[in-house]
């Protein structure tokens, strides 16, 4: 029988704040068994991270465990004093954090930090002890895939990339072979290919070391790929808890169902994503009764009045009245609508309007950045390098069409997006907007064009002035272009209504908005002057699934309504699959594949696309072993000195000598309407099928 590593019983956590005492976790009970991965999922503010911190007893100073038990191998963690807790931390239980960039101390070498971590539990005496600790650290680094660990251990954190740092964090956490690993969103900040590497590493280490893992994430795809059991949290409560296959197959709680439905996925090509109305209540204003009732389609009188009980239904715990006696035996059965897994028809594009409807065209566009060399450096003969961020790109976008730009960080997708709008000046090549060459157009002539091409920026908050009310932010485009507005108030209301916001928002400042609202204001501002082209940089980054779903639906509706041409830049392939007509895959400043979204996702032709597609975490646990996971080795090289020949060849599993010698041209395979830059596209065998 497997040992129960962690048993949490009726855990309650409170925060002491200026507004009074807030209950962050209410009545949470779950188990983590030996060698088991238990996922915790929910939107921001639902208490996932608080659970992680509570288990490690690392709550912020104003947080307090106010009730319940946490039995770690039978010992109640809540009763331990700080000293006793410290003996467990780092030895029997360890933790890894979301942001690998900041979770290693920047001013000490990896070696120093890994030795200190070990010394905390077994004081090493003399040189021999020190050497043993060092050897163990090197061994652990090798195990997580740090090459040449004996040398690399001397380096400092900034000398490693984000993915490597997360590996080092994992190595550090596993130094003492802990029984429990608490992982707080360890891959959320990483590219999909790196995420796949880390997930593979975690799965492997679990198998090898038998570590039990409590895995916090907002990504249902990661849960489906990794976990055995799942805890769904909402507003500080566990609303559903049980076997991961069961929950994905037949989610019982309305929140779980809504969450699963709002997740965009390329295996579920729906026309619209389901959203959850309203938003997660703040802890200050929790509703009476069931916390989810105000957003629940099934909520009845009883839901608003009394708190539901945690019920055991079909070997699964659900916190919902629908399964209790309150509704009576013949209560409404909650079922998942059966509209899933339907490949959507390829949208036929309107090819009317001027000419062939091409509104954006680039010809061999290059945008290079030169290093700045200071005066004295120049005198002493230093020359800077060149970063080839965009290196010869041809694209065409028609009216009403959406082009997705995907690729890992550093592939040049954002630079291309900005170059199209001439927010950056191209080094070479031509950018044509609606028949006019804007490549070298003077600012005075470009200015009126700007009204027609708008950008939605990645960080909605830093792109909205904190000192302006939303009304003046939305009227600013008119001021800039000197266009009169007859009735400013009406115009603002109209714009807010277009993006689904109420007119009350007009008097607010940016900090008073939620992430989703701020994003919508950003979209409204971009739409103010009726543009033809919208470039959106990571439109859903940092948003919760259900909020992101709302934004994506909005973008889709606006496209239909105004016949907009979109360029959507994202590293989230699930987003692209939902909204894009065609997708351009970028690698080191070049397009390596360009095809209709439908084909690209099901039958990639370029090895890089293949690896990207196979790395997408699909929110369906049954596919976890069916899909071939192609793990890309290493990371994207620097655009400062790209590899010769095909830029992808060092990471490509099909590469041959020809790939090193000859740069493959982006070409159409006989009549297939898809472009691939690969010498051996026929070798790519990856197929995604959902049967």
């Amino acid at each position, binding site marked *: 029988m497997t040992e129960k590593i962690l048993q949490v019983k009726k855990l309650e956590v409170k925060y002491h704040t200026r507004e009074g005492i807030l209950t962050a976790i209410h009545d949470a009970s779950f188990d983590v068994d030996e060698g088991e991965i238990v996922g915790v999922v929910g939107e921001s503010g639902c208490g996932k991270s608080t659970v992680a911190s509570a288990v490690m007893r690392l709550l912020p100073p104003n947080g307090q465990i106010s009730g319940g038990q946490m039995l770690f191998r039978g010992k109640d963690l809540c009763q331990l004093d700080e000293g006793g807790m410290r003996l467990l931390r*780092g030895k029997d239980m*360890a933790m890894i954090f979301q*942001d690998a960039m900041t979770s290693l*101390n920047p001013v000490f070498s990896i070696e120093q930090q890994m030795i200190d971590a070990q010394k*905390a539990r077994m004081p090493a005496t003399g040189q021999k002890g020190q050497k043993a600790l060092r050897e163990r650290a090197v061994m652990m680094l090798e195990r997580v895939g740090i090459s040449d660990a004996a040398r690399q251990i001397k380096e400092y954190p900034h000398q490693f990339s984000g993915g490597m740092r997360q590996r080092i*964090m994992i190595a550090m956490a596993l130094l003492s072979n802990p029984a429990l690993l608490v992982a707080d969103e360890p891959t959320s900040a990483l590219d999909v290919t790196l995420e796949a590497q880390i997930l593979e590493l975690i799965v492997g280490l679990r198998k090898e070391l038998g570590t039990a893992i409590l895995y916090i994430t907002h990504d249902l795809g990661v849960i489906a790929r990794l976990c055995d059991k799942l805890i769904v949290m909402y507003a500080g409560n566990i609303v559903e808890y049980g076997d991961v296959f069961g929950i994905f197959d037949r989610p019982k709680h309305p929140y779980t169902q809504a969450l699963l439905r709002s997740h965009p996925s390329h295996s579920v090509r729906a026309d619209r994503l389901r959203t959850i109305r309203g938003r997660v209540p703040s802890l200050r204003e929790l509703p009476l009764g069931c916390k989810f009732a105000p957003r629940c389609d099934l909520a009845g009188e009883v839901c608003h009045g009394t708190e539901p009980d945690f019920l055991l239904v079909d070997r699964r715990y659900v916190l919902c009245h629908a399964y209790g006696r309150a509704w009576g035996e013949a209560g409404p059965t909650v079922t998942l609508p059966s509209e899933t897994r339907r490949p959507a028809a390829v949208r036929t594009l309107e090819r009317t309007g001027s000419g062939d409807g091409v509104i954006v065209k680039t010809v061999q566009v290059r945008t290079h950045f030169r290093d700045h060399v200071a005066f*004295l450096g120049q005198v002493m003969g230093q020359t800077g390098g060149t970063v080839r961020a965009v290196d010869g790109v041809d694209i065409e976008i028609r009216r009403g069409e959406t082009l997705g730009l995907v690729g890992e960080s550093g592939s040049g997708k954002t630079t291309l997006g900005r170059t199209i709008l001439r927010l950056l000046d191209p080094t070479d090549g031509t950018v044509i907007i609606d028949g006019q060459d804007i490549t070298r157009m003077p600012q005075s002539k470009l200015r009126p064009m700007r009204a027609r091409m708008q950008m939605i920026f990645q960080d909605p908050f830093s792109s909205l002035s904190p000192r302006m009310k939303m009304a003046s932010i939305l009227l600013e485009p008119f001021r800039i272009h000197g266009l009169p507005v007859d009735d400013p108030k009406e115009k603002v209301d109209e714009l807010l209504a277009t993006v689904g916001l109420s007119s009350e928002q007009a008097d607010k400042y940016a900090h008073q908005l939620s992430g989703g609202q701020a994003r919508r204001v950003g979209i409204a501002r971009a739409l103010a002057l009726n543009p033809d082209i919208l470039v959106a940089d990571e439109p859903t980054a940092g948003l919760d699934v259900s909020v992101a779903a709302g934004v994506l639906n909005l973008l889709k509706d606006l496209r239909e309504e105004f016949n907009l041409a979109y360029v959507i830049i994202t590293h989230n392939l699930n987003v692209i699959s939902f909204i894009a007509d065609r997708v351009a895959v970028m690698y080191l400043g070049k397009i390596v594949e360009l095809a209709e979204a439908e084909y690209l996702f099901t039958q990639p032709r370029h090895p890089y696309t293949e690896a990207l597609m196979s790395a997408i975490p699909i929110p369906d646990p049954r596919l976890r072993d069916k899909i071939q996971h192609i793990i890309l080795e290493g990371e994207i090289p620097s655009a400062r000195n790209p590899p010769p020949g095909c830029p992808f060849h060092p990471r490509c599993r099909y590469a041959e000598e020809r790939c090193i010698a000859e740069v493959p041209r982006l070409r159409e395979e006989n009549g297939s309407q898809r472009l691939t830059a690969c010498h051996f596209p026929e070798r790519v065998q990856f197929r995604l099928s959902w049967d």
Partner: protein
Amino acid sequence: MRTYLLKRFAMTVLVLVLVIVYLTLLVHVVPGDPAKSLLGPRANPDLIAKTRAAMDLDKPVLVQVGNAVWKILHGSFGTDVFTGRSINELVGSALPHTLILAWVSLGLAVVIGVPLGVYSATHPDSWLDRITAVISISCITIPSYVGGLFLLLLFAVKFKVMPAIGLGEEGNVLDYVTHLILPAVALAITWVGYLARLIRASLLEVLNQTYIRAAMAAGLSPRLIFFKYALKNALIPMVAVLGVGIGNLMAGAVFVELIFSRPGMGTLIYNAIQGRNFPIVRAGVLTVAFLFVAANLLADLAYTYLDPRIQLDKVRG
């Protein structure tokens, strides 16, 4: 690293040459004949001509500048026309007193200011933290000449526990130290407050970083986390401020030396200005400028030691 040092050295020389040129030209900007104002109204024309020759004033301006740069780069400030002593000697006898004063003040500021800041950061919003805040901000607002006067009046005049002026008896170390206390404290007061606030702010920021939480999760002892993992990070901004602060300290030293009648660079430059003795002004200001540049270089080097992310010889992207 070597490229960087070479570059910095070239930069230092460039700055110093520019300062020399500027100081040499300054003589011509001030109204009146420098030699005349130096010798006073009743000097005879013969002596004036001789002095002008000694000060190079009879030559074309470009030659004056060139000569000055040439001589000073070869280590000679020339001879004082009044005393006939070499100016190098004058600077040499004044400089150590100022250096000692500046470094002792700086040391005092660090020794008092850093623990105050550390305490405030570890006990935020405690009543001691609030008192420290009041003290720190009061300290920042007291200029050294006000603090100096107060200390002088209080401890030397009223209570008579401290010597008021001068350096103390020659060769008597204890006497030298007691004479140093009041001026050093006067100079350090501003910096105590400033450093305390700075350390508090940067420590609080560092303690909120994920790597501190990660260190806690790894089971490291709170002492190790605080004194090793947090403090080293928190000291980085302090070093930057101290580098620039040396210049500030030198300026403060001028006042403090005058108030306490201590020989030193401040007194030397002040008296030279009073007597319109331009060669000495030039030598004094140049020495202070050199110290300022050198202190900044030291601070930058200390940086690399504290923060491995800073690579001085790399071209920044």
